[in-house]
């Protein structure tokens, strides 16, 4: 008999709230967390808006041998601790249980500017301005610069092992599939449990690309919203006036568990992860296929893996970035995947309220997706006001809506470079 995988724990850190109950409350109320960026002065950039976590939860300085510092690291630890507690799992640090795993999708922490600035200031002495230090001299001085040690805080180095230590996990996987990474972490954990190589997995993602370098890069790609005079309305997925996404930050985790394992220990089951669908666009580095065929395939595969059909879908938590290209292609893909059923399915974008968490997006949006079962409501798409001819579905404008029937929720995540992931969730019964 095929094994089943259920969600027994959740944790989240986001711009609108940290902690799942408050996060759900604010999503349901349509509260937006997009504001004028405060971490640095954005005046010189085309985009001045971000969804920052202004009141992050406290976290320990260390987890075992691992230093916890910096924004992506501390957000991820806070969300992971909440998820493990929610699941009623002991941290079991140091046990390295072989049937417990961690899957984390992390970004590319941007520390190079800080490392260069600190090293240049160190070698400049009193007589020179740091910016007058030649690049070659900075390069030669790096090996004696303590600032370089901050590379430890790159997600892909110490964060996943720290989470494995926290969870007592004997398997550790770090994934980087851009905006689809958080969902892929959860999907890969599902596969591991399904095939019998683990019983429990802490899976999710976190990111913060609210740095000078990354904001500049995305501005140069003209991917960010320039609605600087209306920060709260800047992220408006599927709306005719959308002009780009808003960079967000935070982290989300779920604890996935084999059904019988969860039942035996009496764990609360928030939902069942019934299927996953992966596909690639094989098209362009920054744009999806306009015809939505890659996205369609991931949705169809997720439904097939869940043993469900288009008529079973009760809500789609869309990738919904608020970019011209994504939202139109995703709408087309939903039409293709669901056919006639598409017009009757509500489609919401969590990014309308918390911005785009990149590697963390799919994970946080999975937590949001479970709302349909935990609260029996689907959250609205904030800021949706005007219909775009290329986006002609029901995007849940204005207010949350009650869930009136049982069925499957699809969570879409589509990444830069053409990586598509869809997760299919249903009530755990």
């Amino acid at each position, binding site marked *: 008999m095929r*094994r089943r995988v259920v969600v027994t724990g959740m944790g989240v850190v986001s711009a609108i709230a940290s902690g799942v109950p408050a996060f759900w409350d604010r999503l349901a109320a349509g509260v937006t967390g997009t504001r004028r960026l405060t971490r640095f*002065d*954005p*005046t*010189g*950039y085309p985009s001045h808006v971000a969804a920052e976590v202004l009141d992050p939860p406290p976290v320990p300085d260390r987890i075992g*041998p691992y230093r916890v510092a910096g924004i992506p690291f501390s957000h991820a630890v806070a969300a992971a601790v909440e998820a493990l507690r929610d699941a009623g799992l002991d941290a079991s640090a*140091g046990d*390295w249980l*072989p049937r417990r795993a*961690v899957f984390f999708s992390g970004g590319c922490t941007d520390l*190079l*500017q800080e490392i*260069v*600035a*600190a090293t*240049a*200031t160190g070698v400049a002495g009193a007589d020179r*301005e740091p*910016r007058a230090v030649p690049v070659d001299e*900075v*390069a*030669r001085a*790096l*090996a004696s610069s303590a600032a370089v*040690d901050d*590379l430890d805080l*790159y997600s*892909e*180095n110490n964060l996943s*092992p720290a989470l*494995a230590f926290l969870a007592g*996990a004997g*398997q*550790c*996987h*770090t*994934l*980087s*599939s851009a905006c689809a990474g958080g969902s892929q972490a959860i999907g*890969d954990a599902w*596969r591991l449990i399904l*095939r019998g*190589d683990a019983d429990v997995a802490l899976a999710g993602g976190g990111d913060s690309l609210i740095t*000078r*370098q990354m904001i*500049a890069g995305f*501005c*140069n*790609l003209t991917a960010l919203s320039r609605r600087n005079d209306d920060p709260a309305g800047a992220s408006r997925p599927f709306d005719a006036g959308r002009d780009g996404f808003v960079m967000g930050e935070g982290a989300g985790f779920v604890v996935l568990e084999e059904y019988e394992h969860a039942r035996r220990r009496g764990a609360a089951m928030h939902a069942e992860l019934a299927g996953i669908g*992966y*596909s*690639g666009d*094989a098209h362009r*580095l920054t744009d999806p296929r306009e015809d939505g065929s890659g996205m369609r*395939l991931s949705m169809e595969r997720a439904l097939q893996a869940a043993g469900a059909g288009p008529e079973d879908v009760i809500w789609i938590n869309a990738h919904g970035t608020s970019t011209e290209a994504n939202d139109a292609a995703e709408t087309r893909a939903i039409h293709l995947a669901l056919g006639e059923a598409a017009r009757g399915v509500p489609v919401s974008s969590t990014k309308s309220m918390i911005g785009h968490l990149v590697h963390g997006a799919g994970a946080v949006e999975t937590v949001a997706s479970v709302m349909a079962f935990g609260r029996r409501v689907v959250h609205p798409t904030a800021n949706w006001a005007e219909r775009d001819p290329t986006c002609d579905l029901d995007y849940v404008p204005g207010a949350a809506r009650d869930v009136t029937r049982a069925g499957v929720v699809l969570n879409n995540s589509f*990444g*830069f*470079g*053409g990586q598509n992931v869809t997760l299919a969730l249903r009530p755990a019964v």
Partner: protein
Amino acid sequence: MSPSPPKEEVRAASPRRVVVVGLGVVVPVGVGVPALREAAAGGRGGISRHPEDRAAALPPGVGGRVPREALKGRFDGKLLRLSTMSEATLLGACAASEALEGAGLRHSDGPFPEAGVYVGSYICPPAFDKQAKTALALTERDAGSPRGWRLDDERLPHALKSQSAFDFLKALPNMIASHVSIQGHLAGPVGTFLGSDASGLQAVGEAYHAVRAGEAEVMLAGAAWSPFQEVLLAWLRRRGLLGRGDGDLGTASRPDSEDADGMIPGEGAAFVVLEERERALGRGARVHGEVVGYSSRFAVPGGESDVRARADALARAIPPGLPVEAVVLDGTAVPWNDRADREAVSLAFPRGRPRILPSASGPCGFLGPATGPVNLVAALADPRPGLALACSFSVDGTHAVVAFQSSAP
């Protein structure tokens, strides 16, 4: 010689078998599988000294570099542009191209949804000089700050003019997989594994399971890495992982030797094409071997639990009842890590160690996440009977083992 399988094993049985139908490799001793075999037969090394004016900024001053002229014409220039590719992506695109071509799977007529790609990678910091110039232009001394400096946002508009839209894209770790998927029209699962030197074999192992579970019919899997970036090498040195690099270049990288003193960095890439066996046989593909097992384990590095985790990874990768004839270890040349490797093999095979095959990290330098896939490709290109294990036991505590059998020569 095989250890007992773990007692709690509940892995689902699958009738689908997974064979290797394509090999591709780019390493300092040669570009392409024939060149790799030739170099191995001739005992040729690939470690060279960095130019004198760069050596101090690129510790330890020597490394395994792939000659760029050897890469010309090795990937599809109509589909991929050099301006969007990092060094690792360039190496990966060349190795992937060879693997797909050898597999007879060069699709040129649109998306190939039954085929995907998994790539192992590691930190890919952006090219140093350009980014450092931007950072320096913003740096301002600030006595009032505990750090003694600040980044001056008023200079941002000027500094940003030097940034290309693709500069930061190059640094995204998933860009290797994205480029390769575009090159091969691979529209199945696309993923990137990071986090340790084991990520290359994690990519191969998870690709094996994707085919085995029926999520894909074909998977391109492997890794690419180019570590010659100033901040990355400085960080490895500060962690005490780099060797001295002095003395004879031919013996600069000395994995598993008594006087090993650390990694000599090398760059490279390797890919295998995995395919469901019946499909491969049905289309008459050349079969190089079969992947028959995979496992991955984690423990905090350096202690007794780390050795046990490595041994457990070995045990879990082996299909029941199959004796292990050979093992190939990454061979970082970091003394404590090589010692833990040896102890783990002894623990896993108490009745006698299988034959230990030489690692590419000797002649090429340590290839990071690409080491495991390069060793896998080298072993499949030089077939020998029996079950073999390719192992990446990383200094970060994540370990991966892929079990495979070569086809008869």
